[in-house]
């Protein structure tokens, strides 16, 4: 018997009683709908989470200075600065899996503009590569600082939106001078808004400046976690004159007086940075990048086999895992509910197919009398069950997709159409039809034609 004929037969049998067919497949409609909606909302939210992670900088690696130890006494993480700006350039240049790298010099100081002041959460001295790594390239205003600003230690800075709001209150900050520990910085750009990060820390409360400027003009040393008032009273001695020569103008005067030399110490070769931020070229390359960076730093720092590292490399994988595991758990729970609903739907299908076989006993007997083999009967009822499940599945796909679209429209949840979900739904429907349609179909095929013909 040709398949299309079997199909037509099945369709005709189902359309003969459309309401019953619809009610029968309701379980499957709901189950498949739930699967589709769940998968669309699930992939949507996991994409959103990935985006959030990427907004902190996709594939970011953080290289921290390691522990110093002397005579068996460990001084703890970050107790000595072992990373140099040259390490940073070498990493960017020599590691093929690293897209870019930027040094970070941290400071903590009060900003003053007019009669307002603000202590930013983060005050990072870095290079323009930082913007690439942290995905901050599209400044909402102004231009980023340049390599030349770094070489010259120019007093320019980029501000995060929070600082702009707190200090400028709607005014455009571009070109304005703010003071940091009595050093004046010219604002050249405003960073794009990023909101809070996953720890709830405001990522917009940040000031970026050339690392040389932060290192040599703002902080004498490395990370200044000192008490704010104490720090500001203690550090304004050496740099106090520098705001007489604001911005790039000082470059025009190569001849420096003794005072100026004291104010503008040239970067020493032996400079150190607090952290190096690097990004891998892709998520898959993160592990390679870590290996390459560690090999390079071993070589540069002359660390022999077996000696402890003087640096640490961190990546975001752990954090990503933690975040996605929550959504995965929710997704799996929903999937369980959907599966139960599908099984209930399948039992409904089996029930109605058994009824249908009983109702059509005489038809089965007649078909056998005119030459249908048991396998033909089996196939006819199996195809009917599959068609029933598939139409339920199709309705479910529509329902689920409609539902998730509605959720997207009304609740603004991130939703993503998932072809995999649709394929799964179709496969699940067919499997259900096969699994729950088999017993009734088998029962039909085992009928005795004589008794079936006599059935009232």
């Amino acid at each position, binding site marked *: 018997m040709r398949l299309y*004929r079997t199909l037509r037969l099945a369709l005709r049998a189902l359309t003969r009683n459309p309401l019953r067919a619809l009610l029968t497949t309701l379980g499957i409609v709901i189950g498949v709908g739930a699967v589709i909606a769940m998968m669309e909302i699930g992939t949507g939210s996991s994409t959103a989470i990935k985006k959030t992670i990427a907004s902190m900088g996709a594939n970011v690696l953080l290289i921290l200075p390691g522990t110093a130890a002397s005579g068996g006494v460990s001084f703890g993480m970050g107790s000595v600065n072992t990373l140099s700006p040259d390490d940073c350039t070498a990493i960017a240049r020599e590691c093929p899996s690293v897209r870019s790298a930027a040094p970070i010099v941290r400071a903590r100081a009060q900003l003053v503009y007019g009669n307002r002041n603000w202590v930013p959460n983060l005050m990072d001295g870095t290079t323009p590569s930082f913007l690439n790594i942290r995905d901050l390239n599209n400044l909402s205003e102004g231009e980023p600082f340049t390599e030349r600003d770094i070489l010259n230690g120019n007093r320019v800075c980029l501000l995060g939106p929070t600082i702009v709001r707190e200090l400028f209150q709607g005014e455009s900050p571009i070109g304005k001078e703010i003071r940091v520990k009595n050093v004046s910085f010219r604002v050249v750009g405003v960073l794009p808004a990023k909101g809070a990060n996953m720890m709830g820390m405001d990522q917009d409360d940040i000031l970026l400046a050339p690392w040389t400027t932060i290192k040599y003009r703002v902080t004498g040393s490395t990370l200044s976690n000192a008490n704010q008032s104490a720090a500001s009273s203690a550090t304004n001695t050496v740099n106090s004159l520098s705001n007489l020569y604001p911005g790039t103008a000082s470059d025009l005067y190569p001849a420096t007086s003794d005072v100026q030399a004291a104010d503008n110490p040239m970067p020493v070769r032996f400079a150190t940075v607090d952290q190096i931020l690097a990004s891998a070229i892709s998520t898959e390359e993160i592990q390679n990048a870590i290996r390459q960076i560690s090999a390079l730093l071993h070589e540069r720092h002359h660390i022999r086999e077996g000696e402890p590292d003087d640096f640490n490399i961190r990546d975001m994988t752990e954090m990503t895992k933690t975040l996605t595991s929550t959504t995965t758990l929710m997704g799996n729970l929903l999937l369980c509910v959907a599966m139960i609903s599908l099984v209930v739907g399948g039992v409904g299908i089996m029930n109605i197919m058994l009824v249908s076989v009983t109702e059509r006993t005489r038809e089965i007997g007649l*078909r056998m*009398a*005119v*030459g*249908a083999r048991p396998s033909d009967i089996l196939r006819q009822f199996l195809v009917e069950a599959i068609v029933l499940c598939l139409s339920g599945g199709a309705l479910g796909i529509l329902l689920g997709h409609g539902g998730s679209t509605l959720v997207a429209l009304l609740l603004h949840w991130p939703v993503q159409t998932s072809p995999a979900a649709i394929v799964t739904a179709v496969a699940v429907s067919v499997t259900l039809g096969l699994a729950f349609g088999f017993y009734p179909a088998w029962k039909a095929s085992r009928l005795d034609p004589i008794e079936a*013909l006599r059935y009232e």
Partner: protein
Amino acid sequence: MQLIELNRIDKTYHMGDFEVQVLKDITMAIGEGEMVALMGASGSGKSTLMNILGCLDRPTSGEYWLDGEEVSRLSLDQRALLRNGKIGFVFQNFNLLPRTSALDNVAMPLSYAQDNPSEREARLRAKEMLERVGLGERIDHEPSKLSGGQQQRVAIARALINRPRILFADEPTGNLDSRTSVEVLHMFQRLNQEDGVTIILVTHDPNVAHYAQRVIHIHDGQIASGIYDAQTPKEEGQA
């Protein structure tokens, strides 16, 4: 060798502890092109015999030679194939598929045919068949919109669609009035004489049996008379 030969056929039903022997030691032959009536009292085993002849059932013991082939030990599938190709059935209660057009009812056996004709050809053949039984105008009618006689003619068209050698009819006129009965019986005669289809009908009614060339009487599962009249048509059997 005859078209149908039965050799010491027994049929026993097991009802719990005791056995009912419905057919006892039946030996007979029916030749190609015959029109035979099976007669007997109710419960004498006519339908049982016909089910065995029609390969719907298997004898408990004995041999059944159909068209030169011993068929009593064939498998389910082989018998289904045989029924599809060589045998047509007409039932007392028509057994048409409800809510299905006359055309589709007639074409139904073709979907199980070995040569597997195309959809177009199947419809064409079904239409031809319906025209032959005089229902060319009613091909789209569903059984519920046809009279009893018309329904039985649709059933005959269905039985003939695969061009069978033998047609079995179990009380084909049992549900019809006398006028339509005559129509149906005339149709059987024409099929038998013009197309050479072997026809075996089961009936209680001597008037119906008259249309056959030979009448086999069954009494209590045994043949009482009519075994040896093969190929000697009774004069009074002719209509």
